[in-house]
């Protein structure tokens, strides 16, 4: 089994009544559901080797080098922000309760309180400081201070999809039980069309198992809603995927839209889940025109020590001459009348008009699952 990132699967969970009672006596900091989900992701080892929120040394190292202070690859800051009024009542060395809807759900042992440069943050992580970028907007809406320190999770966050929530310790046992030595992870925030299926199955032919991970969490307007993505994939699995080689679980964290840097972050999470390979497609985790279509491929050459093997896919399309879904590496009929591209925009447009896309673009069962929702997109 592949080693977790940094060598050890982090587990910082204490659901005991005693600990919860102790937390009730601490100063409280209210967090939203996205922060709560990431608290759980740290505690259950999905973000191993992180044991909490980044201190200033790690934060600066991630911005400067795309690595933690100890040189282990890490590209996206995992931080807890705070406003001045909160910080004025806190000291390094304090334990505080992180609460959700007023109830303590975690403890943060504050080891560092620091100011940070938001411009430097966004230019490093997103490669831009344009307020058109949703990640930049999010960072500029954060408090001016960051709290670093180890955490303890007291209670798992609520989930809409308990059936699909697997933590790294679960997936690692699952892969072992299924006898999968090589497992490829696929990240998605979309409903699947035939092109996605082709990529997943092409990768699966090289390994023992496929883990599809829809990303559940805050997304931008116009993205498919979480429940729609899950239902669409359920339809695909039921009709087109072998049970002994493919499975699905969710990852509950928000999209950062950090393109190449987020591709590395996504790969690290899959490594912690026990995947040996990770599919990186065109414009992975991109938004608008902020990144080149293959920037997320190029960045992997800076991380030969990442410890998970990327599988790169370029463009893929249906070729009427080949009569198959192909990519530009295996089909000689590019830029010709034979080529039908999987246009997400076109598929979305047809679905919004209540129409099934053609069967060579999307499986009818998948289309029907999407069409069963009155409004499948995020408002």
């Amino acid at each position, binding site marked *: 089994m592949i080693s977790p990132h940094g060598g050890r699967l982090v587990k910082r969970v204490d659901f005991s009544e005693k600990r919860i009672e102790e937390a009730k006596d601490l100063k409280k900091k209210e967090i939203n559901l996205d922060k709560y989900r990431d608290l759980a992701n740290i505690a259950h080892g999905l973000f191993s080797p992180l044991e909490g929120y980044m201190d200033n040394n790690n934060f600066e190292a991630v911005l400067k080098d795309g690595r933690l202070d100890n040189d282990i690859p890490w590209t996206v800051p995992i931080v807890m922000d705070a406003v001045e009024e909160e910080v004025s009542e806190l000291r390094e060395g304090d334990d505080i309760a992180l609460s959700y809807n007023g109830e303590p759900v975690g403890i943060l042992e504050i080891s560092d309180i620091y100011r940070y440069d938001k411009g430097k943050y966004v230019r490093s992580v997103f490669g831009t400081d344009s307020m058109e970028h949703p990640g930049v907007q999010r960072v500029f809406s954060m408090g001016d201070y960051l709290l670093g320190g180890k955490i303890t999770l007291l209670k798992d966050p609520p989930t809409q999809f308990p059936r699909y929530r697997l933590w790294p310790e*679960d997936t690692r046992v699952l892969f072992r039980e*299924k006898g999968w030595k090589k497992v490829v992870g696929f990240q998605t925030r979309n409903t699947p069309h035939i092109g996605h299926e082709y990529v997943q199955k092409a990768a699966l032919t090289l390994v023992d198992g496929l883990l599809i991970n829809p990303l559940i969490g805050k997304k931008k307007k116009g993205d498919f809603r979480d429940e729609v993505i899950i239902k669409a994939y359920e339809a695909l699995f039921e009709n087109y995927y072998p049970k002994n080689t493919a499975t699905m679980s969710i990852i509950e964290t928000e999209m950062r839209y950090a393109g190449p840097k987020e591709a590395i972050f996504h790969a690290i999470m899959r490594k912690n889940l026990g995947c040996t390979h990770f599919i990186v497609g065109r414009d992975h985790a991109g938004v608008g025109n902020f990144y080149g279509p293959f920037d997320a491929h190029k960045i992997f050459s800076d991380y030969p020590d990442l410890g998970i093997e990327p599988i790169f896919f370029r463009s893929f399309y249906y070729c009427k001459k080949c009569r198959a879904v192909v990519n530009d590496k295996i089909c000689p009929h590019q830029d010709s009348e034979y080529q039908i591209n999987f246009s997400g925009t076109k598929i979305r447009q047809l679905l919004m008009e209540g129409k099934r896309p053609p069967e060579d673009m999307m499986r009818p069962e998948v289309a029907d699952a999407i069409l069963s929702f009155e409004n499948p997109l995020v408002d």
Partner: protein
Amino acid sequence: MPEERDISIPQSLYKRIQERIKGTGFSSVDEYVTYVLREVLSEDEAGEFTEEDEEKVRERLRSLGYLE
């Protein structure tokens, strides 16, 4: 960068590593050796579950329908 220490290795081994990293993303022997040692140590530190922990996870996976 973290604080570093020097370690000596045989010259023949150094040369073999130099050959091996040609055309890879590793830009120096130091980088490669650090990576390999980290991986080796990781295997020892991984901290496998106890059989009891694993059985709990297997039970959960069965209840969710992942295992039969």
